[in-house]
């Protein structure tokens, strides 16, 4: 095309230009540093300041961590050993972790039964796997559904009939719904599906379970809730709260958007009330006030009460996160689902909720992480989660006055859990991306 005449305006391209690779000068570590660290005078100054800051912090912290004592049997002994090193800020006494790590993990759970807690933890990973990674065998989902009952039995012990009659309640609910849905219509079926298990659990489950146990005990050694503690307790409360707050939050979000005035009012009232009250208050209600409202003589396990409160608290936040996702969907999605003849529940389950949840993943996982960290608040009502145990450990005259090592260790474990959740959510977001 070099012979185009400059004086003519008309122009016709005869050959299309081929695609070319980008120039190779724009690559390499030096280029990266120039772009990211030293792109201007201000950025250069900021980079140098950051390096200096990191240097100061790390030279203080790393020797303290690295030269820490792992052998001393008391804080006093440790301080003396560390003083010999001649470090300006001393060093850590890690031996407290070496001595007490089992307690920090299991609380006062009987040590000959640790295997039950370990087994419950491993089975939890198995139960979680198909939920977290949908590519795995879908059949394991059956185990995931049964896992809560298995875990309950393993952790608290007692007769196997307790979890079995609890599962039976769900079976009755299902049967009641299936039978009545065909004969008496869906509304009757739903009501029956709610009433049947409630009646069963409240009135019949106890005697039936006792009766069966007296015929055939099938019992393992029971462990009372007061012995639960450490990270085991945090994980029990955290994972149960997470698993229950998501479905509850979804229902609340749908309720808040509902056209049914009473449903909507109840959901809005619940969400606003729970969000307006500090979690600590709810935990105090769980630990003390709740007993006043229950019939005298009912024993209602403290861990169960705490789980309920934590779940309710998280579900109110979850509801708002999910509502945000629902509101972000274009109305066209709702209209297209309607126009195809999908009813409300099918449209919600197949079209709107999957998309809303996908949009809300960062918010949902933030709520999960918040919930998991909030489990440490149960130390205030006397449960022995890791933070509660630090007080306990300091009460030992050998370790009186130890602070940083314990909190540092607990922080590290929490960080591992929370960081895993955060990475998983990023993986999920990448996986569910279906645009360009």
């Amino acid at each position: 095309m070099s012979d185009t005449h400059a004086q003519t305006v008309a122009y016709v391209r005869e050959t299309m230009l081929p695609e070319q690779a980008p120039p190779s000068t724009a690559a390499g570590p030096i280029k990266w540093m120039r772009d990211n660290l030293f792109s201007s005078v201000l950025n250069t100054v900021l980079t140098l300041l950051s390096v200096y800051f990191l240097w100061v912090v790390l030279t203080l912290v790393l020797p303290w961590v690295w030269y820490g004592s792992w052998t001393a049997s008391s804080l006093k002994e440790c301080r003396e050993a560390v003083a010999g090193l001649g470090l300006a800020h001393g060093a850590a006494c890690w031996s407290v972790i070496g001595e007490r790590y089992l307690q920090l993990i299991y609380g006062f759970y009987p040590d000959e039964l640790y295997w039950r807690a370990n087994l419950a933890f491993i089975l939890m990973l198995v139960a979680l796997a198909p939920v977290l990674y949908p590519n795995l065998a879908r059949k394991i989902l059956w185990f995931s559904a049964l896992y809560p009952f298995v875990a309950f039995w393993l952790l608290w012990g007692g007769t196997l009939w307790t979890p079995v009659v609890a599962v039976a309640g769900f079976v009755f609910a299902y049967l009641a719904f299936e039978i009545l849905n065909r004969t008496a219509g869906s509304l009757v079926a739903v009501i029956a599906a709610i009433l049947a298990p409630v009646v069963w659990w409240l009135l019949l489950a106890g005697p039936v379970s006792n009766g069966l146990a007296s015929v055939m005990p099938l019992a393992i050694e029971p462990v009372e809730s007061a012995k639960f503690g450490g990270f085991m307790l945090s994980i029990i409360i955290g994972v149960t709260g997470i698993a229950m707050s998501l479905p509850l939050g979804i229902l609340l979000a749908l309720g808040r958007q509902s056209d049914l005035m009473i449903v909507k009012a109840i959901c809005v009232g619940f969400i606003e009330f729970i969000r307006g009250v500090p979690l600590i208050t709810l935990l105090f209600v769980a630990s003390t006030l709740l007993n006043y409202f229950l019939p005298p003589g009912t024993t209602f396990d403290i861990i169960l009460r705490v789980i309920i409160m934590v779940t309710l608290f998280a579900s109110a936040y979850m509801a708002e996160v999910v509502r945000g996702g629902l509101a972000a969907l274009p109305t066209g999605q709702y209209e297209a689902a309607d126009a195809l003849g999908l009813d409300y529940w099918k449209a919600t389950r197949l079209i709107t909720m999957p998309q809303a949840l996908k949009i809300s993943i960062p918010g949902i996982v933030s709520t999960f992480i918040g919930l998991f960290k909030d489990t440490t608040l149960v130390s205030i009502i006397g449960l022995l989660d890791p933070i509660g145990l630090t007080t306990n450990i300091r009460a030992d005259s050998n370790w009186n006055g130890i602070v940083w090592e314990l909190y540092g260790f607990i922080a590290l474990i929490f960080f591992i859990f929370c960081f895993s959740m955060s990475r998983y959510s990023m993986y999920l977001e990448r996986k569910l991306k279906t645009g360009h």
Partner: protein
Amino acid sequence: MSQIATDREIDRSKMAVSDEVAIQINKMNKWYGAFHVLRDIDMTVQRGERIVIAGPSGSGKSTLIRCINRLEEHQKGDIIVDGIELTSDLKNIDKIRREVGMCFQHFNLFPHLTILENCTLAPMWVRKTPKKEAEEIAMHFLEKVKIPEQADKYPGQLSGGQQQRVAIARSLCMKPRIMLFDEPTSALDPEMIKEVLDTMVELAEEGMTMLCVTHEMGFAKQVANRVIFMDAGQIVEQNEPEEFFNNPKSERTKLFLSQILGH
């Protein structure tokens, strides 16, 4: 504004209008708050009719066809679709929606599902068609709209024209007896308008009852058997396309046509 929808000969052999009534609308009124958007709409659609509804924006033409499958609720008058009256009875609404397909200006494909899943979802969940059969039906219609090779992609990976053709296929998978088109080509580049119009022409040739809100006057001339002109929430004029375009009666229609065809 393209003046023709398709270059090829249109086969009018199957485009016969039967006496059977598909949609009957009597004295239908609708308000948005205090705004009277549809006023005394009377309309009968026979099976096999291809009706183009034209009019300036805000004239209520989209609202009219959205009332037919109850995406909008009318407040007065009756709408009877396929012999079923539209009331607030959810069962009737679902019954009608199963028989009435709809295509939207912005396609409204489900972005989290593949093209194939978009097409099989409603047959499987609403009509309870087994998955394998639903997939066969879906592939049949995807071939019909000439994009079977995109079946495993997601809507976000397709061009606008392809997405609209998928949307048409998705509706057809429900085997509807009536199709509603709400400005199906308004969000498309000129190059893609033709591919969508071709698909619609083919559909008309097979005798589908169609109601199209569109500005494609070429499509109206070639395919429609009746053009309805709306303004200010009322039907101002309706006629066969020949008469409508060559010999409009109302001043408002003349003005509209001069503006839309004048350039």
